[in-house]
């Protein structure tokens, strides 16, 4: 039997610390040490530095002085300097890990990591990129949902939007991407860390809508807010639009900062690499997340809704029938109830009572209606590609059942 050469194999399996290096290799190249701390950024030496005229000084001393000067110059800015981005290993790793297009420079990636609460200068924080990325995310998610499931009720669309592109999801994505948070923002911080001013512990997160919303009668808290009005007055998740950020609050939560970062990455890709790259990034990182839309429904009176739906669409009146049952007189009976419209079975459900089976069957039938998906789904943004096929109108539904 041939002898295994473990050393050659282990290089790909073992980590760098435990790797077995043969003596010759060690002798020729020496032991390599790695440190987890990022190297101190050495910026360009200022013109009026004292190093120029102090050449006879000890080299080590001049090095220390230069470092302290660089550190001094870094400390005067609220966020890392642009030159520091090239030196950061974390940034390069993040760029490679996300498989970002090479046309997106690490300097821009560093800018996406600076929140507005860390650096209020809009030329250096990610606000503009995040605004663009937020609009792109909303647009791509909305068109995907509406074209794939043209009959979804609005409340379900809001919930699905929140699940795909809501702040909680974006924060989870930033965590999955391995973005670490800086404790305190500053010019000397590694630009690969997400920089934002944290909220003081114990301070309340403002979740009430700002007073200057466009919605009329906002003060009438008891009035019902219809789902339709949310389309006009609220944001894409059906939540009230937050006004300008509160000036008294100095910081943001890590969730808000992470969400802003992910949006800013989207905007940066769009700006540097173009529409196609942004679309691809969206499909790879957002649409690839699994969301079971059928779990977002919540019906109060499914049987009544189904009756109204059948009346609206001109189908025969739905009738619940027992398909099979077992143990009717026992402690745990099971009834399988189907809802039929004429000879067509619309839905089927199993329950411990006839009522439960009927309600579940009605829920299944309503979900079957709402979760209709056309065979070949094309979204409007597909027309932006060169040499796109002519547009065929998508299926537009009457809308959800209103009782």
């Amino acid at each position: 039997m041939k002898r295994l050469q473990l050393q050659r194999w282990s290089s790909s399996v073992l980590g760098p610390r435990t790797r077995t290096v043969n003596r010759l290799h060690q002798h020729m190249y020496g032991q390599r040490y790695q440190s987890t701390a990022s190297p101190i950024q050495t910026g360009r030496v200022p013109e009026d530095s004292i190093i120029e005229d102090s050449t006879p000084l000890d080299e080590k001393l001049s090095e220390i002085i230069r470092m302290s000067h660089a550190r001094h110059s870094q400390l005067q800015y609220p966020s890392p300097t642009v030159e520091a981005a090239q030196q950061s290993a974390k940034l390069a790793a993040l760029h490679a890990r996300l498989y970002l297009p090479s046309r997106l420079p690490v300097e821009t990636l560093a800018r996406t990591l600076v929140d507005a609460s860390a650096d209020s200068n809009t030329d250096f924080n990610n606000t503009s990129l995040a605004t663009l990325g937020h609009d792109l995310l909303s647009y791509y998610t909305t068109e995907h949902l509406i074209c794939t499931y043209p009959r979804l009720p609005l409340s379900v669309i809001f919930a699905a939007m929140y699940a795909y592109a809501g702040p909680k999801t974006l924060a989870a994505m930033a965590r999955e991407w391995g973005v670490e948070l800086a404790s305190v923002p500053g010019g000397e911080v590694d630009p690969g860390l997400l920089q934002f001013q944290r909220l003081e512990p114990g301070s309340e997160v403002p979740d009430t809508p700002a007073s200057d919303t466009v919605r009329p009668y906002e003060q009438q808290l008891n009035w019902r807010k219809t789902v339709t009005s949310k389309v006009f007055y609220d944001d894409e998740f059906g939540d009230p639009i937050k006004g300008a950020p509160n000036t008294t609050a100095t910081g943001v939560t890590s969730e808000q900062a992470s969400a802003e970062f992910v949006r800013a990455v989207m905007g940066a890709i769009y700006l540097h690499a173009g529409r196609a790259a942004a679309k691809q990034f969206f499909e790879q990182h957002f649409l690839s997340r699994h969301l079971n839309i059928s779990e977002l429904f919540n019906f109060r009176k499914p049987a009544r809704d189904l009756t109204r739906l059948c009346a609206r669409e001109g189908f025969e009146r739905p009738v619940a029938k027992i398909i099979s049952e077992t143990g009717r007189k026992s402690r745990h009976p099971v009834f399988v109830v189907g809802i039929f419209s004429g000879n067509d079975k619309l839905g089927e459900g199993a329950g411990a009572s006839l009522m439960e089976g009927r309600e579940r069957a009605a829920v299944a039938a309503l979900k079957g209606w709402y979760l209709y998906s056309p065979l070949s789904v094309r979204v409007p943004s597909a027309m932006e590609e060169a040499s796109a096929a002519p547009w065929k109108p998508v299926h537009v539904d009457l809308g959800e059942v209103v009782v």
Partner: protein
Amino acid sequence: MATSIAATKRPFLTLPFLLPSLSDSLALGFRRNQSSYRRTKQRLRVKPDASFDPSHQGRDHIIHNPPSSAPSVYHTPSKFLPADDVRRASSPTTVTTNAEDLPGVYKSMPERKYHLTPSDVEEIRNLRLNDPMTWSRNKLAKRFDCSPVFIAMVCQASPEKREIQARILEAVQSRWGPKRRMAREDRQLRREAWGRDA
């Protein structure tokens, strides 16, 4: 192999005179178990499904034994497909031929008569408004030969009557103990879970 072992073992175990000295004390210990190899095999030898019946074997057929699970909600019933969808013509799978033969959930489906006139509705409203204690929903439904749901659709009890009713309900519920209260709340929660399909 297994049968030969069983054949050699069997006389040994069934002939207790081979172990004369330990006969009584060990008889209980050597008693045969239910879970012998052969018996387990016998239990597993169940009759195959009817679709595997050899009478089909003259011609080609598809063996289709659907699992005992509810159909996926992402599979739209063909009745719900829009008219321009190609799946509508190709898959009449949701059509059940014996829908009429199946028993209904209710003992009898009430026949819809649509016999009440606007004057009847006006009378219902008057009766309920003037004497709400006598003319409850059930009594009105019985008198006008319609369902209580219809009575609720055309009129509503006066606020005083609703307040009295709420107080009665409160008085009844105040006599419930913790067990009954929790059971009722659990039932309500379970019922709400039906709509979420949870």
